[in-house]
């Protein structure tokens, strides 16, 4: 292990002069600024049209009665959301889904990355095989798994039956667990690649030193790998939570939110409100609330991640 004396020394911090008053820019600087704005303009216009205007519009729509009328409803749609048992159920289901897919993504992604990082023969083929589902659209994945999981006609139950094992009604009795499993099947390859990149950034010198100190494999994993993968874990968890809270295709294609409302993911619920019930006001309000929830979750995760990084 490198001793403190061998580590490169950081330069002393330089104190910058405090800016006391706004200095007048030179003509060259002003010209450069104008040029910069010209080049930035397409992007700013793009964002204004396709990001900021829709957000403003959805905020506006969320304040309207929404179902074929354009009357101002104030915050009624928002207050109604908290009293609506179907919305509460959808949020609960979505939280379960997001937590399960996030934990699964971290555990499976990190586990597979550690396994593949052993540089065993065939690891490239393994990597590719795991990554292919991620490159496939959720529509294709959904239809494929629907057919595989069909309790009567699906191949999975046929295999179980041939092996003398009890068959299952996957989508009828455990719809959320099943769509979690399908989601992890689809996304684990991607998280594995992220963790693999993180693992390859950890200097071997730490592991060698730990070996010299007598640490076994589990201790090296717990004391070196997991802490030094914190930035990757944080990134994966933030992305997985956001993706989990926004999940739609799984409910739309695989379960239709059912049976009953058992797998009614929040975005699917919003979709049904908008396009089946045509209640755009209420659907918009739920969309805004979901946005706020996602922002809150992300800030909390970033805060926790930052605190953990400081400790290391």
């Amino acid at each position, binding site marked *: 292990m490198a001793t403190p004396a061998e580590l490169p020394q950081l330069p002393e911090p330089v104190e910058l002069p405090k800016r006391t008053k706004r200095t007048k820019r030179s003509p060259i600087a002003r010209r450069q600024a104008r040029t910069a704005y010209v080049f930035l303009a397409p992007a700013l216009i793009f964002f204004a049209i396709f990001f900021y205007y829709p957000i403003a519009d959805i905020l506006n729509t969320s304040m309207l*009665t*929404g*179902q*074929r*009328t*354009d*009357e101002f*409803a104030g915050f*009624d*749609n928002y207050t*109604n959301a908290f009293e*609506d*048992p*179907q919305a509460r159920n959808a949020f609960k289901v979505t939280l379960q889904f997001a937590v399960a897919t996030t934990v699964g993504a971290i555990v499976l992604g990190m586990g597979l990355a550690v396994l593949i990082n052993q540089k065993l023969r065939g690891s490239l083929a393994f990597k590719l095989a795991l990554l292919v589902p991620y490159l496939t659209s959720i529509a294709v994945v959904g239809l494929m798994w*629907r057919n595989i999981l*069909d*309790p*009567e*006609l699906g191949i999975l139950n046929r295999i179980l039956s041939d092996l003398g094992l009890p068959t299952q*009604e996957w*989508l*009828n009795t455990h*719809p959320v667990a099943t769509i979690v499993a399908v989601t992890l099947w689809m996304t684990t390859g991607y998280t594995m690649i992220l963790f693999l990149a993180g693992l390859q950034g950890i200097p071997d010198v730490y592991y060698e030193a730990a070996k010299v100190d007598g640490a076994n494999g589990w201790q090296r994993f717990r004391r070196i790998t997991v802490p030094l993968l914190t930035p990757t874990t944080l990134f994966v968890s933030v992305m997985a939570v956001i993706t989990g809270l926004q999940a739609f295709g799984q409910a739309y*294609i695989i*379960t*239709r*939110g*059912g*049976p*009953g*409302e*058992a797998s009614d993911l929040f975005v699917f619920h919003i*979709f*049904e*409100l*908008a*396009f*089946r*019930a*045509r*209640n*755009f*006001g*209420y659907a918009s309000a739920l969309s805004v609330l979901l946005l706020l929830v996602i922002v809150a979750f992300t800030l909390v995760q970033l805060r926790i991640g930052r605190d953990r990084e400081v400790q290391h």
Partner: protein
Amino acid sequence: MSARPAINGQWMTRRRMLGVAGGAAAALPLAACGSGAPEAEPGGGGGGGTFLAYWNNAHEYEAYKDVVAQFEKDHGVTVELQKFQWEDLRTKLVSDFQSGNVPDVVEEPGSWVQEFALSKDALSLQKYLDKDGTKIGFPDDWLDVAVSDNTHEGQVYGIQMHYTCTLLFYNRKMLDDAGIEPPATWDDFLSAARELTSGDVNGTVLNDGLSYSYPWMLQNGVHEYDADSGELLQPRAAAMEAMQFQRDLVHEHKVSPKPTTSLDVTRAAKFFAAERTAMILTGPWDIPIIKQSNPDLEYGIAPALTGKRQSTIAGGTTLFIPAQAKRPDLSWDFIKRITALKTETAATEESSMLMPRKSWAKEPAVQENPDVKPFTEGLPYAEEFRTGVYTTGKAGELEDIYKTLYESMLIEGAGAEEAFAAYDDAAKNILKG
């Protein structure tokens, strides 16, 4: 939820105004460059460009291709049939209504026209029918329910294109081997299903999709909505009995596997074609699937079952013109051609699809078709289960909670008391909103 059922006046959002303004601006040059359009009137009859129709993915028949080719030739347009499954078509259409960028004509699955008439998104066809009705035989040549299902406040908004119902399909060999006659009543059906269930073979397979539960309700005298009292699923005791009967076929008597929540409503037909079920309740749309999967299968089609009375669901598709369509005259001409008797008969010969014209039922091609004739005998007693639901302005939401009721009982096995109590709670919230 705070939506209001009452609709007062035209809903015109800023986006819609922009869309309509844009549409009107676009219509001018299009109208000007029309060639040979017979009805090139200001405001919408011109040809040229692309004529966009939203269509069901299973209904692109050769018979329609011929009509489309002639229509293109006569009007100098290119017809684009964009094909969707119903769910996706609705999503696209509702988005279009919001943006104001709508197709020229739409095929819908039989329950949207009145809903969209109520929301002012569908165009009244009354002025066209006043002019052309007699020439095309409307309404006299259409079955009464096919007209009333597309009428709102005395105005017709859609022309029925297909008109179907569900009947009992049975495997001849299985029933003959067991010495069983095709069942006519619920009791007969249960008895036959029990007899025919063994090993891998189910007596019946209840199809996926809640609309397949409607005939059972109708056979017990139940409709989804009673417009006079404003109450849902009445008479209630009969509604609970009908749903419980279906639930028991799955959970108590175990003569049918559980339905699934799939969008794929061909599952029962697949079981039937694979000879893994003796009986299914379905319509002519499954015939091509059955024949393609198992050309040698000998099947029969029996009349609808009788509960408290004999009934089946009236289904089928309708063509309508969005209110914001840019060339409604052209759209009307397209509808006339597609729903002409000659086209209907050709489509039936090709696909065994059923049609709404009374004269169609008398055609030799219909009478001599063993797959079609039983349905022509079923159509007169077919009914609409969701009559009047659209007047609540909550048709989509009410269908959702019916779906929950259906799935909670048939898939999850809930009892009728519990499931209907949850349904009533949800319905109360929707209707008061």
